[in-house]
């Protein structure tokens, strides 16, 4: 009666429309970057790891009825116990109660996840950015071997025999023989393989010098560094790490937290543990200098230093901080002081950005972040890209 067909595969019919759609969301990803970065752990991820990014959907507009206050609708229910006046969906607390809340998730906005690898994410984000003064230092003794397929050869070892190419050659020869009449396909005679048919995959081993980078993340963890401030710092550090990782083969991370004394800590402790106490900005920097001397010779390593605090320092430490920062700038490819300070916080005494202002140069930048939305523009400023792309 009816006709049945097992589906003749139309090779992934929506592929081109998806590619086109993807282009549109790349922009959305850049805009929504601050939502992603807070969630991701910095270490222990290679570029292939897939992460799901919530993007604001590329919205399409049509004439539709409003769903606002007072609008009506019709529905049904399974149970019989519905009553007039009954509330079947409670008011959204965020919308009704406190102002602010999570911005961007207003009603009617379409959110959905797009899956990208960290590598792809880095590509979207960092294409237009450049690392200044990228010297690509490398220690001569360290090479990485990269194995690449490179065509076919007629000689090789057995395991690299390419059955496909070999068979293709045999078929080619067979067709030729049929044409010139030396082989009759109708006959029972076999048409055997010939030594000339054999093809082997060729593999090329390339040696490539490894470029190394080490990133120092230094953060003030004293009492004044609130959760909100750490959140901003973490987001910014995530971008820095992904960016530098994108440009280098291997990247080492060093986390230093400090109050009045610097300490090397794990990533987890770095972001989660708070300490009480005062603040010596210099202490974190001194710790970095110490570690560089021990483990990361500036002649072999590209050093990046990022120091983050809320801008407060005990006044007597300022001269020491300037001194230490000068040294750090001297041996780093790039360094920056990042002041996270959500609007409204009062700073006692002189802000660190003011203290460090005389040091500002191509290799040392001062960054101020007061809210999530600053992160991406400030980040692009740091690396000379187009802000707000």
């Amino acid at each position, binding site marked *: *009666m*009816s*006709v*049945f*067909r*097992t*589906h003749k*595969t*139309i090779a*992934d*019919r*929506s592929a*081109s*429309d*998806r*590619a*086109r*759609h*993807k*282009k*549109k969301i790349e922009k959305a990803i850049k805009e929504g970057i601050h939502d992603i970065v807070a969630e991701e752990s910095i270490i222990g991820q290679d570029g292939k790891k897939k992460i799901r990014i919530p993007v604001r959907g*590329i919205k*399409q*507009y*049509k*004439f*539709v*009825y*409003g*769903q*606002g*206050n*007072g*609008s*009506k*609708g*019709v*529905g*049904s*229910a*399974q*149970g019989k116990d*519905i*009553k*007039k*006046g*009954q*509330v*079947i*969906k*409670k*008011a*959204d607390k965020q*919308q*009704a109660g406190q102002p602010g809340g999570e911005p961007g998730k207003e*009603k*009617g906005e379409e959110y*959905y*996840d*797009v899956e990208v690898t960290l590598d792809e994410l880095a590509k979207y984000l960092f294409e237009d950015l450049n690392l200044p003064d990228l010297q690509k230092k490398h220690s001569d003794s360290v090479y990485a071997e990269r194995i690449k397929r490179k065509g076919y050869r007629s000689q090789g070892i057995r395991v690299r025999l390419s059955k496909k190419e070999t068979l293709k050659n045999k078929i080619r020869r067979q067709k030729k023989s049929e044409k010139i009449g030396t082989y009759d396909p109708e006959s029972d005679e076999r048409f055997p393989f010939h030594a000339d048919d054999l093809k082997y995959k060729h593999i090329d081993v390339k040696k490539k010098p490894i470029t190394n980078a080490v990133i120092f993340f230094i953060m003030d963890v004293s009492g004044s560094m609130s959760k909100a401030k750490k959140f901003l710092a973490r987001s910014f550090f995530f971008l820095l790490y992904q960016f530098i990782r994108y440009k280098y083969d291997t990247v080492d991370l060093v986390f230093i937290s400090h109050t009045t004394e610097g300490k090397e800590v794990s990533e987890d402790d770095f972001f989660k543990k708070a300490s009480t106490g005062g603040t010596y900005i210099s202490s974190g920097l001194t710790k970095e200098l110490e570690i560089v001397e021990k483990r990361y010779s500036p002649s072999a390593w590209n050093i990046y230093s990022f120091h983050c605090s809320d801008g407060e320092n005990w006044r007597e430490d300022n001269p020491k901080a300037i001194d230490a920062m000068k040294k750090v700038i001297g041996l780093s490819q790039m360094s920056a002081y990042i002041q996270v300070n959500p609007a409204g916080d009062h700073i006692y005494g002189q802000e660190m950005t003011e203290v460090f202002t005389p040091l500002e140069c191509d290799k040392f930048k001062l960054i101020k972040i007061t809210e999530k939305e600053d992160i991406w523009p400030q980040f692009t400023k740091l690396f000379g890209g187009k802000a707000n792309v």
Partner: protein
Amino acid sequence: MSDWSLSQLKEWDDKICEVAKGYGLDWFPIDYEVCDYYEMIGHMSYHGMPSHFNHWSYGKSFERTHFMYNAGASGLPYELIINSDPSIAYLMRQNELFLQILIMAHCVGHSDFFKNNRCFKDTDPKNVVSRMRNAKKRIQGYVENTEIGIDKVEKFIDNLEAIAFQTNRYGIPRKSRKEIKASEIERYNKLKDVGINLDQSQLENKLLRPDYDLFAFFQEYGRNRFKDWQLDILDIMHRESLYFIPQIKTKILNEGWASFWHYKILHDLNLEDKFHIPFLKLHNAVVRPHIGGLNPYHIGFYIFQKIERELGLEACFEVREIHDDVSACRIFLEEEDIRELNIFSYVRNKGGEIQISEVADEEDWKVIKQDMLKSIGVGSIPQIYVERIEKDGSLILKHEYDGRDLDLEHAEKVVDHVKDMWKDDVRLFTILEDEVWEI
């Protein structure tokens, strides 16, 4: 892994067709395509059309469905069948045999509905597949044309998608400017014969009457504003809107009819228990009310069962032929039905709170019915029409207000899309909180 073979599907299909024929169902031949879930999502993104023009929004549609499916937020629809002759339906490879049997019986119901319901008489099912294939080729040609290119084509389709379905909803023939002019002149002359002389100079102003078909309007009045390729895309998307409107108008009846028949046919097939029990389970899940919404399967199945019970099977066939959702619900849903279906009206309060405003009691069931009739079928889409073109070329659009306010954020963006096409100013008038509102 599937637990069936193609020959089993064929055997069951033969049995289904035999039962359906016995009842007098009259459907297009059906071509079933067996595919995997990934291909299924692909076909769904293009409304099941085997061939359809490309646009990024279909890529988006794919990503969304794929995401929802993987996230477990929604299953895939069991059936996907298009209104064509022959009908094309898709069967997912991983579905179990009992499910395929149910789907095939369900598809027979749909195909019969497409073939016989009056709303579909102008959809040209014989040629729809080749028409869409052709449209795809032409649009691909514009994309590849170095003078046009993908950006322009995409932009134009974006603009038209924003006004999708703003076309002739009720099959009332639209009069072109030329036809209106001819009939006006005829009227003038008739009046002249009886001694009344009208001012001929006012004739020009009367030629554009409120025009409810935006696509046809743009095709007629935009001839000097649009390039040939744009007029062609206008035509393609106009036809597509017209093709899908009958399905919007009959969602409840169409799904109801298909469910009514899969239920009947599978009953008559005397399935053994291992098929019958999962079938009943699934059937009940399909026709169950969606809490807080209206499930077309639920309401449609109920309507046809009620008609069969009260008026006989013959009457069911008549309803599937002459009715759409609004007319059928108006005639067949009475107080006890609204109560039985447990339908209520609700109102949205501040902060997204939803509160039941009417339940089906003696007093309020009529309010609920009216609210329901407004929101089903094409009633779910606001209607916008062309009021006039001003001397400076600006276009005046109006919203046919029925008590429901437009979503202004959307409306503003749509007007921007129309401006982008029309090149002159575009203004839209609607009513908001009982006051005239201009966008």
